[in-house]
């Protein structure tokens, strides 16, 4: 079972306390955008085998959204941070680079 530390209330929350919100850091497109951009925003997903960033809501806790960095193969959690940001904080980058040298995800990548 996945366990995340909620960055808002500090609770170590189990999977059953949380609801998953899918891929994080999606760039939103709306009226006036191209069909390809809109399709990408709505449907196309990174779906990596390895390092992944995704949104979670502490649904049966403080109710707030956060983002988790996680490995989809080992289920190792690299860290969590509040959702009000467009990219991961430095320490999450460093922690992933330490454990998965040369990782990449969408347009993000760590040092090898």
């Amino acid at each position, binding site marked *: 079972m996945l366990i995340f530390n909620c960055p808002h209330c500090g609770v170590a929350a189990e999977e059953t306390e949380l*609801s998953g919100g899918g891929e994080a850091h999606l760039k939103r497109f709306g009226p006036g955008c191209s*069909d390809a951009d809109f399709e990408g925003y709505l449907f196309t*997903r990174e779906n990596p085998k390895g390092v992944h960033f*995704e949104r979670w809501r502490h649904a049966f806790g403080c109710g707030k959204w956060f983002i988790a960095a996680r490995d989809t*193969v080992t289920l190792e959690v690299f860290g969590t941070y509040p959702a009000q940001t467009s990219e991961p904080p430095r320490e999450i980058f460093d922690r992933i680079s330490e454990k998965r040298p040369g990782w990449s995800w969408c347009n993000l990548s760590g040092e090898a």
Partner: protein
Amino acid sequence: MKRYSAFAIVREALMNDHKGWERAWRNAQPKKRYDVVIVGAGGHGLATAYYLGKNFGITNVAVIEKGWLGGGNTGRNTTIIRSNYLQDASAAIYEKARSLYETMSQDLNYNVMFSPRGVMMLAQTEHEVRGYQRTAHANALQGVQTEFISPRRVKDIVPIINLDGPRYPVLGALWQERGGTARHDAVAWGYARACSAMGMDIIQQCEVTGVTRDGARVSGVDTSKGHIACEKLGIVVAGHSGELARMAGFRLPVESAPLQALVSEPIKPVMDCVVMANTVHGYMSQSDKGEMVIGGGTDSYNAFTQRGSFHHIEHTVAALIETFPMVSRLKMLRQWGGIVDMTGDRSPILSRTPVDGIFINCGWGTGGFKAIPGSGWGFAELMATGKSALCAEFGMDRFAKGRFIDESVAAGVAH
């Protein structure tokens, strides 16, 4: 290939001490070049290869597999076969598959143990009653034989069921008498044997590490057993479709998540059909060995763990105990997971791709086993001729166009 028959058993028993049986298929090593390379030796990949050979005479084909033949979702599902879908495009391909299952053992000369024992989908809310009545009417127009039946007939067919569940009483059911189950491994083995007999190479433990291109066109694949050149490449890898697409240079509207199943200890025959209870979310059938085969839920997040989250088991088993109180005393023997590939509209993708010569067959999500022969039939036609009526609606461009095949909302099924 020596044919299997009652006569062959007698011959082997009386004259050969059973030493005359051949290997069912050759464990081949790759040649430098093929007309068609199929990535993924699961049911869908092998069926594609089989119908390429049988229907189009294309036999210079390799089916390459990272692990072992049929070791992915083909060997991990709950073996249910049905075609009671709402949308015309889905009903067409699933009904094609179901009808091919009826004659598969004779066609392949391999006993796939297809058992048309009937599939029952319980209606446990007023909404489900209306939804399934609508599906039954749609199926009548599509030529798929289903009917909406009363609770009394449900009890006649499944005596162990509890009709007045504390939360959700059974109000009726959608009944497809010609649906059922088959031996999932045998489907993969049967197709593999037939492909091998046509001269195709099935190459196991051969992992694709890259896709090579010649301009806009595919030229082959890099694998752990060296480069294999090909004219056309079929990607049929379920949960790993995103990884293969990335190697080929395009992206997919697909997400991968574990779906799990479990089986109980074997017991005497108690239920001779498949029952799906989608409101409480559990489905169950009894295998020929006597085990109750139980399908569970999908994890709500991307993962490649092939086991699934523990709490889903509790959720599924709790639902089944409401529906079938007698299963509360059963011990569960085994649990496992498969990585299912979910698209935005929960319908599959059988399509050309942005790279010339590459075709993709994926997105079967939680319901691929039942579709294996129909999927192979249509996808082989698409790869051989460039178009297929069965696959026409399942192009990957439907997401940009908003032309969804919306089964997840329309049928509300566990697939």
